[in-house]
C-alpha cells in the first residue's frame, strides 16, 4: 500500500504552474479527485433506463452485472488525450522512475541536443515545487509544472489540462515526467504513446524484478548514470537480464545524461518515433 499517496484525501490540492509567467492554476481544489466521484458531470456511464442492465435473481436479492472499470473515468480521459495527440501528430511519452534516477537531467540533455531538430515540450509532475519545470525552461523548452500535492502519480485529466495549455506543435514531442515512483504511475494511463522507465546504475540491478508491474507497462528502459557504473559495481548484463525477464520485448538504452555517453542513440530512437 502506498503510504504517501493522498489521492483520496479530500483536502489535497493539485495545481499547474507555468514557470515562464509564474501563473498558477488550481486543477483540483481537493473535493473531486477524479476517481469516479458521483457528482461529476462529464461521464456517460449513468444508466437512465434500468431495463438494459442484465440481471438475475439469486437466493438473496437481485444481482446485476456491471463490468465497470474501476479506473474507467481516468481511462476514458486518457483515450481522449490519445486521440488529441494523434490528431495533432504529437508524440507523448510518459517517463517514469524512482526519485532521482535522472529523468529531469535526461530531459535537459535531450532538449539541448535536439533543440534544432524538433520541438520538445515538457509536463513535469512532482508533489511540490516548480524546480524541475524551471530546469527544463533553462534548457530551452516550454514546460509546465503540475504539483500533485499528496498524490503520488499524474492522472489523465491533469495531462488534458496541461496539453491544452502548452499547445504543442504538430510533429513535436511532449515529454511527461511522472512523479518519481515505480508503483502507482503504472496503473494510470495518461494517453501517452508509451511509457519509458529510467533506472540508474546506483539503484542496483534488481529494480525491474522488484517492481515488475511498472517494468511490464513500459516499452523502453533507459539505464542512466552509466558514468557511475564502475564505481558502484553495476553489472549491466544482470540488469538487462532482469529487465527482459519481466518484459521480453523491452528496448534497452544505456546512457549517461551527465557525460553524454549513449545520448546519440537515445536521440536517434526518439527521432525515429516521428517517422
Amino acid at each position, binding site marked *: 500500500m*502506498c503510504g504517501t499517496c493522498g489521492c483520496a484525501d479530500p483536502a489535497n490540492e493539485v495545481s499547474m504552474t507555468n514557470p515562464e509567467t509564474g501563473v498558477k492554476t488550481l486543477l483540483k481544489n481537493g473535493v473531486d479527485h477524479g476517481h469516479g466521484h458521483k457528482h461529476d458531470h462529464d461521464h456517460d456511464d449513468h444508466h437512465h433506463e434500468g431495463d438494459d442492465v442484465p440481471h438475475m435473481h439469486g437466493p438473496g436479492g437481485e444481482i446485476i452485472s456491471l463490468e465497470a472499470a474501476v479506473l474507467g473515468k481516468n481511462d476514458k480521459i486518457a483515450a481522449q488525450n490519445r486521440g488529441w495527440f494523434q490528431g495533432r501528430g504529437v508524440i507523448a511519452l510518459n517517463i517514469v522512475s524512482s526519485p532521482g534516477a535522472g529523468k529531469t537531467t535526461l530531459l535537459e540533455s535531450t532538449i539541448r541536443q535536439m533543440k534544432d531538430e524538433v520541438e520538445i515540450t515538457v509536463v513535469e509532475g512532482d508533489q511540490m515545487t516548480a524546480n524541475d519545470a524551471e530546469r527544463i525552461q533553462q534548457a530551452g523548452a516550454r514546460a509546465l509544472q503540475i504539483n500533485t500535492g499528496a498524490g503520488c502519480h499524474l492522472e489523465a485529466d491533469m495531462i488534458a489540462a496541461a496539453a491544452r495549455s502548452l499547445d504543442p506543435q504538430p510533429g513535436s514531442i511532449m515529454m511527461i515526467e511522472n512523479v518519481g515512483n515505480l508503483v502507482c504511475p503504472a496503473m494510470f494511463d495518461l494517453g501517452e504513446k508509451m511509457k519509458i522507465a529510467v533506472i540508474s546504475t546506483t539503484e542496483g540491478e534488481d529494480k525491474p524484478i522488484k517492481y515488475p508491474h511498472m517494468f511490464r507497462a513500459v516499452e523502453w528502459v533507459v539505464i542512466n548514470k552509466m558514468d557511475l557504473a564502475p564505481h558502484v559495481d553495476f553489472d549491466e548484463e544482470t540488469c538487462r537480464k532482469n529487465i527482459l525477464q519481466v518484459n521480453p520485448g523491452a528496448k534497452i538504452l544505456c546512457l549517461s545524461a551527465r557525460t553524454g555517453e549513449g545520448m546519440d542513440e537515445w536521440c536517434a530512437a526518439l527521432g525515429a518515433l516521428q517517422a
Partner: protein
Amino acid sequence: MHELGLARSIAGIAQENAKGRPLKEVRVAIGPLACVERGALEFCWGLVTESTGIAGVGLRFLDADGDTFVVRELEFMEEA
C-alpha cells in the same frame, strides 16, 4: 497503493448504479496484474463507506485474469 482512492471509486460506481436501491454486496473482479492489494482495499472500503448510504454493504473479490479491475456485479437486498 492508494487503495483509498480505489475504494472511493468503487463506492461511486456502486452508488451510481444502485440508484438508491438497498445493496447487499459489491463484487469486484481483480486480476493478478492489477496491482491491487486486497487486504488494503477491504480495509479502505470500510472507511470510505462508513456513514454513507452504502455503509455495511459487503465487498467481495472475484479472481480474474491479467490486469482486470472491474466492478463485476452488484447484489441487492431481498425485496420485502
